[in-house]
């Protein structure tokens, strides 16, 4: 027992982040194998596409949350911000009858603006990220209900709107794999943000801020401005999630959104991003989001009751955070 744990911790020392990612990936494979054996329906193309479709919204939100969490912060407002952006898109497209591109711009722009506000609260007013984004979460939930008059806004006047999520650009080229656009958006976004994190100045400062903010400041970097930029980028990504979910439902549902932030954070954590900041990856977050979707889908196919699905999700989150704690303790010791 001791020798095993010693061996594990010795192996974990040099690249514990990579190890956690590997662990997450292995868990995903195990889940896939398990459910394929347990149910013949699981590996059907239609089911795989359903899993991916179900991942798209949570995956996009989790990418946004990853950026903020790597800086050592947290964003609790991603879920209600997504809804708020969907409602704004509804206002622009349905109430005002503007063309589709303007609606898309409005949703993403609103997200970025709200992220800018959250970032300013954290960076300039020094409000702890948990509190600042908790406040934003409630404000945005309320505003969504106020603006929409608590009723869904339908996109019936914009016939091409559902195409954003449910159409299939890939399917038009390769009819055999009708991957929905929502999933395509998720994967393209993951590639882009993965590149931004690892190859650009903004990404470098994400890791640097999460690693030692004071040191970055003493190096003459305008840490406040970068932090605000990172929150704004995360907000813009929430706007994209808002478009995907509104397009799938062909409506902006103002009551939706609460609880999505926790699913997103769960995906991030399961994917091996440290809540303490400084470490994390988009690849890990994608695996984390897929694990959650596969788990829920598989349990549903096996006819496990909805309430038990929730219990299992909770257990997975605790296990993942515990793994994160163990990893940090090893890194410290």
């Amino acid at each position, binding site marked *: 027992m001791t020798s095993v744990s010693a061996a594990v911790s010795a192996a974990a020392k040099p690249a514990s982040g990579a190890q956690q990612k590997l662990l997450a990936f292995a868990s995903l494979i195990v889940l896939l194998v398990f459910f394929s054996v347990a149910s013949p329906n699981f590996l059907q193309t239609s089911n795989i596409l359903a899993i991916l479709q179900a991942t798209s919204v949570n995956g996009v939100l989790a990418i946004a949350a990853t950026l903020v969490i790597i800086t050592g912060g947290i964003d609790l407002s991603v879920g209600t911000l997504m809804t708020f952006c969907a409602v704004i898109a509804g206002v622009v497209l349905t109430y005002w009858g503007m063309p589709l591109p303007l609606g898309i711009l409005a949703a993403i722009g609103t997200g970025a603006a709200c992220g800018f506000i959250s970032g300013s609260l954290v960076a300039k007013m020094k409000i702890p990220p948990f509190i600042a984004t908790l406040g934003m979460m409630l404000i945005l939930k309320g505003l969504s209900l106020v603006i929409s008059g608590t009723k869904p806004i339908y996109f019936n006047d914009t016939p091409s709107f559902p195409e954003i999520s449910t159409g299939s650009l890939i399917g038009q080229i390769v009819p055999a794999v009708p991957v929905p656009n929502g999933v395509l958006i998720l994967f393209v976004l993951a590639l882009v943000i993965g590149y931004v994190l690892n190859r650009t100045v903004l990404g470098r400062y994400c890791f640097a801020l999460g690693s030692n903010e004071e040191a970055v400041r003493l*190096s003459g970097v305008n840490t406040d401005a970068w932090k605000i930029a990172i929150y704004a980028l995360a907000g813009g990504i929430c706007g994209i999630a808002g478009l995907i979910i509104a397009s799938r439902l062909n409506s902006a549902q103002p009551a939706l959104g609460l609880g999505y932030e926790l699913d997103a954070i769960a995906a991030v954590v399961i994917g091996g991003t440290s809540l303490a900041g400084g470490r994390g990856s988009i690849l890990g977050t994608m695996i984390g989001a897929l694990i959650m979707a596969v788990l829920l889908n598989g349990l549903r196919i096996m006819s496990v009751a909805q309430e038990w699905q929730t219990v299992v999700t909770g257990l997975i989150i605790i296990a993942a955070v515990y793994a994160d704690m163990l990893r940090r303790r090893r890194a410290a010791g």
Partner: protein
Amino acid sequence: MTHLVEMTGIEKHFPGVHALRAAQFDLAPGEVHALMGENGAGKSTLMKVLSGIYQPDGGAVHVMGQPVTIHGPRAAQALGIGIIHQELALMNDLTVAQNIFIGREPRRSFGRLDEARLNADAEAIFRQMNVGMDVRAEVRSLSVARQQMVEIAKALSFRSRILIMDEPTAALNDAETNELFAIIRRLRSEGVGVVYISHKMDEIRRISDRVTVMRDGAYVGTVHAADTPIETIIGMMVGRDLETVHVDIPDLGAAPVALEVRGLCRGRAIRDVSFSVKQGEILGFAGLMGAGRTEVARAIFGADPREGGEIRVHGKPVAIRSPRDAVAAGIGYLSEDRKHFGLALGLDVRANIGMTSLERFRSALGVLDEPALERTAKNYIGTLAIRTPSDRQEVRLLSGGNQQKIVIAKWLLRDCDILIFDEPTRGIDVGAKAEIYRLMQSLAAEGKAIIVISSELPEVLRLSHRIAVMCEGRLTGILPGGAATRQEDIMHLATLRPETARMATTKDAIQ
């Protein structure tokens, strides 16, 4: 020859503290200029002014003969001023090269990073320093000494002509220190001016050309390192204008030993520390910051694990593995950080006094006997003269001195008869200090054994019946209290490094 830096009449106030009083400093090209002084003398503050971290409230700074205002770290960098902080300011999750060029990453279009150039530039700096380094390694994986090299490389990457090093060898072993000194000498020969802050006397003699001494935020004087005896420098550091306070040292010849520590060890922090305290005795612990005094206290109290050593209380060996064990043995520890470790600031006086003794005030069902708690709290408010409107007052609303008394009451109620005070008067004003001193003296007179850790030498001299001095984890000597001991004697022991320690003992033996 134009000086690289000239600082004159620098003033700096912090809330409640006059940190710099007309401080001055200058630095010539190609010299290593040591800046010395006791803890809190203002060395680091002065250098933070020079590197743009603090803005001075008055005075003038000239760099290369030009008057300048240094608005921030970036402005300092532009002037060629690099600083290596006491606590290393590195990002552990980034690579060596990424750390060196943080904020100045070579970029391509659209904010994309040019990682290849980043690494090549970093490699070039280490080649120039003549140090082998894998610039792609994560900083987390490097030893502290190697991290120090990264800090130096970072400072050099700004083409710094002025390099400030704040206690650079604090975490280095002798071989690593030699390596660092070789780099400093090479920089000096290239005309770089180095400001070297350190407590270690022998290092100052080895590396520096001139020494400037500060005391209480003010300039004391500048001397040549080569031809000035260490005693002179120590004299400048401690000053001679302090009146001697008479200490009544009780005759403890027949008093039983309360606490005995033998061969206490923990890594580099505590090396083979042995001492004993008698009932009714106040044992002072003096030493410079990082000498290991707090570490010794925490090890005795069970707050940190110890690697070796025996602790005896009233002659019996006790196994202390946690603070719980220590309290059970009658040892109380009053942390230097009252607000974090000593008190629940949002709770009232009564709750805080009873905090560690609640077991005694509860019924079988766990209901607290509030009337008894109230009586006890009021009793201590009376005997320790705690100034509070009532026992229900929130502790955060009381002054530092009264907060300290509440911590004392807490441990007295817990029947602790060995009390370890860590910086007991930090953040307490002068009047309240005298009161805390009197309280500690009367506790000793009642037969409690008291250990006082203090960075203020006058405090140690005023209270202690005997004075233990530490340096770099070792107990370098135990001096008698009272008029027999001068501050210079303590400073001498507090700066004794191992090689000089042996010589000192033989010299003492001859005398």
